[in-house]
């Protein structure tokens, strides 16, 4: 990806109101090119808590141990932030000594969100006005990422030795964490708990999930899953082309050559049936668009149905897009506070634009309308889209599929 597009996506700049809708928008590639593809710009390693630039950053994430040792910081050098980490640890233990738990501290525009996971403390300091629930979920995801890299056995290391230094074990994973943090703002999949799929799903009725993980070529990885605490899982990853890879999973460490044979056979089938070229075409075309919905021209500017489809063609700048994503995120948090999920469609008026979330049954629809749009008409539009989704439900959703039924 170009350095230009990376620069435009960095930082958490304040958003601006939407300009008037553009009549004929350019076709934007999906996923947008400013999404991270495996790596991101280097962090500001020269900074520490004394630097003005560090203090001005809109969103900080920290991982530290319960003895106050820094493990990870989004910005700045962890070692130089030892004093700051100790302060965070002091706040947490001060409250814990009183028999309580600190969850959130508000200081002016800033929110400080705490998450305690045994000997690991996670803290987010943000002035992005994201809801508490969202920030907490982000900390949970960071913790999950950490466990995925190091497995739960690190917890035992802390039990044995509270002064255990975890930083060397995380060597080289900065990129993984910064990509994850980047996706909190840029990938609707992260903040709406959805999965993005290509339009090809719709025509082929097949599961094809694509992701960007950096270029691994051919490798045997391992992961220790939370649900299978005593087992190792090996993953064989093969890039079919620059953007598409095939991943085969096994519990046997000796299965490499067998998986390789399987991969060769699968690859042949994909090539012969031209599925691979179909995927490539879909990647270039991008996902489904609002224009493809069976609707008359209506003041619908952005629609996103959780789980399968998203379109953002009217949003021309990354900044506007981020603002819209933040609005959806807020809406999601306000609807999802109870464990029941959204019970009824809600309609919110936020400054200049209407946002709509509806959940007829198994899916959610997010849509944004022009501030001048008629409310009744907007709701009618959303209902029509919902009806259409229900009609083609079997083609666009994977009903009854359980990924871990083995």
């Amino acid at each position, binding site marked *: 990806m170009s350095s230009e597009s990376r620069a435009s996506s960095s930082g958490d700049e304040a958003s601006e109101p939407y300009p008037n809708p553009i009549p004929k928008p350019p076709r934007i590639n999906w996923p947008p090119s400013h999404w991270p593809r495996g790596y991101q710009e280097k962090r500001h390693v020269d900074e520490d808590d004394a630097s003005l630039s560090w203090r001005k950053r809109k969103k900080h994430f920290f991982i530290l141990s319960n003895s106050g040792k820094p493990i990870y910081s989004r910005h700045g050098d962890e070692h130089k932030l030892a004093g700051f980490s100790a302060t965070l640890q002091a706040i947490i233990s001060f409250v814990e000594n009183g028999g309580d738990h600190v969850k959130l501290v508000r200081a002016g525009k800033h929110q400080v969100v705490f998450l305690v996971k045994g000997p690991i403390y996670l803290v987010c300091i943000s002035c992005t006005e994201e809801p508490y629930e969202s920030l907490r979920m982000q900390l949970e995801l960071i913790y999950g990422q950490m466990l995925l890299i190091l497995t739960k056995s690190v917890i035992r290391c802390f039990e044995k030795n509270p002064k255990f230094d975890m930083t060397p074990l995380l060597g080289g994973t900065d990129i993984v964490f910064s990509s994850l943090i980047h996706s909190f703002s840029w990938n609707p999949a992260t903040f709406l708990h959805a999965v993005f799929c290509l339009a090809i799903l719709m025509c082929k009725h097949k599961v094809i999930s694509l992701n960007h993980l*950096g270029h691994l070529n051919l490798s045997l*990885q391992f992961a220790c899953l939370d649900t299978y605490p005593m087992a190792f899982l090996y993953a064989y990853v093969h890039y079919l082309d620059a953007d598409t890879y095939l991943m085969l999973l096994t519990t046997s460490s000796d299965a490499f050559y067998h998986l390789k044979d399987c991969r060769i056979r699968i690859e042949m089938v994909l090539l012969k049936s031209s599925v691979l070229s179909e995927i490539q075409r879909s990647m270039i075309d991008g996902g489904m668009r609002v224009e493809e919905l069976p609707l008359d021209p209506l003041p619908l500017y952005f629609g996103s149905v959780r789980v399968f489809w998203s379109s953002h063609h009217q949003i021309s700048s990354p900044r506007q897009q981020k603002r819209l994503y933040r609005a959806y995120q807020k809406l999601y948090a306000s609807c999802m506070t109870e464990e029941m999920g959204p019970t009824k469609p809600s309609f919110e008026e936020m400054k200049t634009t209407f946002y709509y979330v509806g959940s007829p049954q198994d899916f959610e629809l997010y849509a944004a309308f022009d501030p001048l749009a008629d409310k009744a008409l907007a709701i009618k539009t959303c209902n029509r889209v919902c009806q259409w989704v229900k009609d083609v439900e079997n083609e666009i959703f994977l009903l009854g599929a359980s990924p871990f039924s083995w």
Partner: protein
Amino acid sequence: MARTGNKNIQAKLVLLGDMGTGKTSLVLRFVTGKFLEYQESTIGAAFFTQVLSLNEATIKFDIWDTAGQERYHSLAPMYYRGAAAAVVVYDITSMESFVRAKKWVQELQRQANPTLIMFLAGNKADLEEKRKVGFEEGEQYAKENGLVFLETSAKTAQNVNELFYEIAKKLAKASPSRPTGIKLHSRSQQNSRRMFCCS
């Protein structure tokens, strides 16, 4: 085409060493002839194959390029088990990576296949001005431990092909004593001929 008198050898080769020493860059330089300024860290291990033809033999390398981070250390035996050759890589601009390389050599001497052919590669030889580990130091250590020593640069391609050719030559020389070679000869003439026809 049948090459009479030419051996086909398939050999497992493993690269070990501290993170960021350039293991992946060395392999990519050898396999693809390219060099990336910013090579991403390897996750787990990466697998490559490359065929080298010498006068005396054709060698098919199965290359296991391991991840250098400490957290992957416990996986290493899985990759060096059964390897015919190992390249321990360090970065000439980092004394720490040289110390780590020595630990890898010790581990291999203790636990790997006793006939394993070991190479020591001091990579990033193009960064002469930042050098922390002297050529003599590497050479001396290699001599004491019976390793073949080379200073390489994946960036300038210095000694990269040489490294893999040296490995191939050593393997070709060592191969007559390999049990697989004997097995083929012990089969009946008819049987082995039929096998070649089918393939």
